[in-house]
């Protein structure tokens, strides 16, 4: 186990390094002059040249990369193109709001999707089973911004049950904080839960055919015991895999939901940066998101390997 962990972490180092190279050159391959774009019609060649020099953008490309990369090692995400302020503290400021929203919505996805999928798989052909596939497709096709808007219009405007957004730190007022998280978390996660349900269903159906389950019923164990001891426990595994797989969609959806609910998270920061055309900020934020994605997937893999003895270490 330890060896496996060490191996995975060693692989991570070249992976993250390649990611920075790829992202940096991907962003710099986009044609056009971002400084002129940012300054708009007021820009003059002198102004552009001065800003370039101040932000170190007149250096050769490889040197710009090296400065960025060396900074990353010290936890320095570079500077903002707009005002030259360091990016790291700005990002750190935004992380709690995003983390809270992501965790709440992951919780909702699993809390809704897992029981549904498990029941559908256990009772194949029942009504839950039959509506699952269409609902999953419906969920995939429902845009997050639309769902979020409908939720605001119904639950915030019409019924007045929840505020239409605005973040309060959990440490300040836990209950109000969670009340405010519920609507955006729901909008972010609800369309992914039928997908989770569908995969849990598939896993459960396969489990029912496993020799150890058949043998258990042959031994005369009660159906409830079999469900609890053999089916339920093993159906938890795919949840892990799916969490890693759906994270990309979740991180993307975050950008939209944070905008809609005025949620001061990393996603909203990305949009603010994009609107102001601060590509240095945006570049670092994309890296942060990608690294989170890679790390969570690593964590999921390791957890999966430690829970499932069939995964070869």
């Amino acid at each position, binding site marked *: 186990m330890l060896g496996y962990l060490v191996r995975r972490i060693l692989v991570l180092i070249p*992976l993250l390094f*390649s*990611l920075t190279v*790829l*992202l940096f050159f*991907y*962003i710099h391959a*986009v*044609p*056009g002059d*971002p400084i002129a*774009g940012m300054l708009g019609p007021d820009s003059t060649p002198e102004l552009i040249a001065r800003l370039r020099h101040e932000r170190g953008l007149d250096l050769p490309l490889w040197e710009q990369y090296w400065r960025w990369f060396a900074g990353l090692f010290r936890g320095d995400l570079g500077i903002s193109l707009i005002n030259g302020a360091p990016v790291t503290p700005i990002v750190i400021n935004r992380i709690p709001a995003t983390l809270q929203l992501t965790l709440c919505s992951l919780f909702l996805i699993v809390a809704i999707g897992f029981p549904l999928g498990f029941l559908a798989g256990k009772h*194949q052909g029942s009504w839950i089973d039959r509506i699952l*596939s269409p609902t*999953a*497709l*419906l969920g*995939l*096709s*429902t*845009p997050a*911004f*639309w769902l979020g*808007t*409908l939720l*605001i*219009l119904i639950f915030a*405007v019409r019924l007045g049950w929840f505020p239409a957004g605005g973040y309060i730190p959990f440490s300040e007022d836990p209950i109000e904080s969670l009340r405010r998280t519920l609507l955006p978390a729901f909008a972010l996660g609800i369309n992914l839960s039928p*997908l989770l349900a*569908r995969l849990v269903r*598939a896993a459960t*159906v396969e489990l029912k055919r496993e020799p150890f389950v058949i043998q258990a019923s042959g031994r005369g164990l009660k159906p409830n015991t079999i469900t609890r001891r053999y089916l339920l426990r093993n159906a938890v595994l795919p949840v892990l895999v*799916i969490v890693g*797989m*759906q*994270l*990309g*969609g979740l991180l*993307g*959806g975050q*950008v*939209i939901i944070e*905008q*809609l609910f005025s949620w001061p998270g990393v996603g909203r920061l*990305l*949009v603010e*940066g*994009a*609107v102001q*055309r*601060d*590509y240095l900020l*945006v*570049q670092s934020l*994309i890296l942060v*998101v*990608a690294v989170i*994605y*890679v790390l969570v*997937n690593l964590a999921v893999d390791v957890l999966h390997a430690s829970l499932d003895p069939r995964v070869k270490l």
Partner: protein
Amino acid sequence: MNLIMRRQDSLVDAVAKARPSGGAKAITLRAIVANRRALTGGLLTAIVVAIAIVGAFWTPYDPLTFDAEHNFAGPSWDHLAGTDIYGRDIFSRLMAGAKVSLLVATGAVAGSFIFGTALGVISGMFKGAVDAVLTRVIDLMLAIPGLVLAVGVVTLLGPSAVSVTIALIGVYTWQFARIIRASVVAVRDRPYVEAARGLNMGTWAIIVRDILPNVMPVLIVQSTTAFAWGILDEASIGFLGLGVQPPAPSWGSLLIEGRQYMYQAPWLPIAAGAVVAIAVLGVNLLGDGLRDIVDPRSDGVKS
């Protein structure tokens, strides 16, 4: 997106095992009519495309003309989806906006189809270092959530329909490359490809004559799915205020207006979102149906 991607990987595997050629089953009109999902999705898609074509030439009201006396009017027989802050008919704007939205999605699919197929075929046909490097690059690019990456490109290019198209090509290309590579690997060592090599045919001739026709059905399924993403992502980027800019109508630009006036004119975001949802649902259904046709044993549908 990720999930769909992995499902398609298993599609490639299943197809490779089930068919002696290793290629996917052909998509015929008859098969589409026989498949309920493909038929429903195809009809919905056709209706959306028809509305976009009509909307490009004719709309009930002029989508750009102000009518201050009738601003923020709710849905009625005169204005099916109500009017906006300037009294413009939202239904007409949705019709006119369909053109830009569908063009962006089409451009995104076409571009990523070309680049993705090229990358995938190169990666799949040339084993060794080229393949190893390309596979790593593709995997890494897929580790960046699509919408986030697209926002990055739009930051540099500025908000417009063309930049959104380019940004989306930069996202979908990797998805195409991945699935095409898997398909090429599945067929590249088949006897008929060996035979072609034995006949001294060049690599490119083999790619064009033997490989591409066999991966075409998978490509069609992938393109359909990507078209649905394209519609959804254009709308999402527009909603963020980074896409087509008002007053020009596109579904994305209507959505940002919808967000601004959500409380005064709730019918605007509801109608614009519904149109996007219907279009995406139609194309997704078509894609799912086509996937069934290409691989009849695919999961979920015929359980």
